[in-house]
């Protein structure tokens, strides 16, 4: 489990904090830094490729913002994330608009100086990506959930875009907060903190719904507006990052086990150890077997491992082993061990069967003769003739 699917995502992060026009909006000092710091967490925590992340700060007009969204939806073929932080505005019909630097808030100018959210909705619904995530950190952003065709109850929203997830920082009638003097807005700050530090009470992988649940918990605790979400399909369970705080409170079950790759003791092996498909004839032969036991004063470990050549060519392991514990006559706790290894001859097609059978047959044949073999007299009989047929 070295990478999550979300690491293949394409992301567009838009931060609008500077406003130019006289009839414009108050600046949002923390918008640009929120977008930039989230971008860096997408690389560090979510392992996105930096080349697939676009950060757009203070687009001057709706065309520049719309072009960036259109570019991202065209290029995304797997997972798309669009994030916006800035002012959200509402016109007289209740439609949500996202501000650009040049937005004029007056109602007779808003429509052509700000970007209409329904256009984002239609661009995203046309996008070929299988999973589409929209995060809005702005006032009235809960309206995006209504605009996506859902019900703004914060939990059960029906969105008519397949595989879409919308996360909004506030309800449809609420303002979002950018506390003065803080580097990030309230919503984005908690999101960045979660990705950076993790959630000690969370699972090992943070899913979109876990992100939402965490933001809901922490924002409500800070007296900020509740975030809202809407989702379709199984996207809620999409894992976005490994939880860096996992395991600090939970047992080993929540830890991501890191097993080192086998040591390389000679040279630079050319074949990988990754097993390819087996030929049908030998599908019942396991790649490896491992065993261990303690008998009397013996501690035993045994392993049979398919070689890299057989793994690469999808052929069966031809080695076999067998371990058998036998009581000696007249005793219940006096034991001997019969251990055998066999190597099927590589050029023979059924040697994997022969190797297994030989180990088993030898054990069965030896059982009767064990007292005789272990008797000191047997060694004496060998000394005159070291080979037996």
């Amino acid at each position, binding site marked *: 489990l070295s990478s999550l699917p979300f690491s293949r995502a394409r992301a567009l992060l838009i931060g609008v904090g500077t406003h130019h026009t006289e009839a414009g909006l108050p600046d949002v000092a923390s918008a640009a830094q929120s977008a930039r710091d989230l971008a860096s967490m997408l690389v560090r925590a979510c392992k996105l490729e930096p080349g697939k992340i676009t950060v757009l700060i203070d687009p001057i007009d709706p065309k520049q913002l719309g072009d960036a969204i259109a570019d991202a939806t065209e290029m995304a073929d797997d997972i798309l994330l669009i994030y916006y932080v800035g002012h959200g505005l509402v016109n007289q019909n209740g439609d949500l608009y996202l501000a650009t630097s040049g937005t004029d808030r007056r109602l007779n100018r808003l429509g052509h100086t700000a970007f209409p959210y329904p256009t984002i909705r239609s661009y995203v619904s046309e996008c070929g990506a299988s999973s589409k995530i929209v995060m809005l950190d702005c006032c009235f952003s809960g309206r995006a959930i209504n605009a996506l065709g859902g019900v703004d109850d914060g939990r059960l929203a029906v969105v008519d875009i397949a595989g879409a997830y919308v996360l909004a920082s506030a309800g449809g009638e609420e303002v979002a907060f950018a506390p003065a003097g803080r580097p990030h807005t309230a919503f984005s700050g908690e999101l960045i903190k979660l990705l950076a530090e993790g959630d000690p009470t969370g699972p090992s992988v943070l899913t979109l719904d876990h992100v939402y649940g965490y933001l809901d918990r922490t924002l409500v605790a800070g007296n900020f507006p509740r975030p809202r979400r809407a989702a379709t399909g199984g996207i809620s369970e999409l894992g976005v990052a490994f939880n860096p705080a996992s395991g600090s409170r939970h047992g080993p079950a929540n830890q991501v086990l890191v097993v080192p790759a086998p040591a390389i003791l000679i040279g630079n092996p050319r074949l990988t150890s990754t097993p390819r498909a087996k030929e049908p004839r030998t599908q019942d032969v396991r790649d490896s077997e491992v065993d261990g036991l303690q008998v009397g004063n013996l*501690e035993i470990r*045994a392993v049979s*491992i398919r070689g890299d050549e057989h793994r690469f060519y999808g052929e069966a392991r031809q*080695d076999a082993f067998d*371990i058998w514990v036998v009581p000696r006559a007249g005793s219940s706790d006096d034991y*001997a061990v019969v*251990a*055998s*290894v066999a190597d099927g001859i590589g050029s023979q097609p059924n040697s994997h069967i022969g190797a297994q059978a030989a180990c088993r047959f030898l054990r069965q044949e030896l059982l009767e003769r064990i007292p005789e073999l272990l008797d000191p007299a047997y060694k004496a009989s060998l000394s005159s003739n070291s080979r037996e*047929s």
Partner: protein
Amino acid sequence: VNAVADRLRLEAHTRDIPARTLSTTLTCGLVEAQTPETGTSRAVFLNVGDSAVYVLRSGEFGDVFGHDDTEIYSSVASALPGSISQVEVVVADLIPGDVVLLCTDGLSNVMRQVGVRRQLAEWWSRQPPGLAEFYWQASFRAQSYGDDRTVICMWVR
């Protein structure tokens, strides 16, 4: 061993395949699991073919059948059910602290390399490893050694 060869031939007959297609080497160790008053455990080793038995004692591998001195990578290995006259038998006395290794040539060939031998001696001279650790140790990779690898280690206490 004769009986094993006979049974391999019977197995081939039952499966309706030529007996020689089952060809395999076979190496066996019979080890006493209680140390008698003499302080040594008796062990009997049988072998047909190019697998190997080592005793790891005082950090050094001793080759029980002396195969290390014979020709490297002999292409014609003795095998059952054919080579029933090529059986080697050795009786050995083991002392506490010994580690007995039975292994196929997937391990014994690469053990001709000093570095591998030294690493295995270091790993296996200690307390017996856990199963996952033992699997990991035996999974070491080596360029040009891609054969199946089987090893049974017995630590004598």
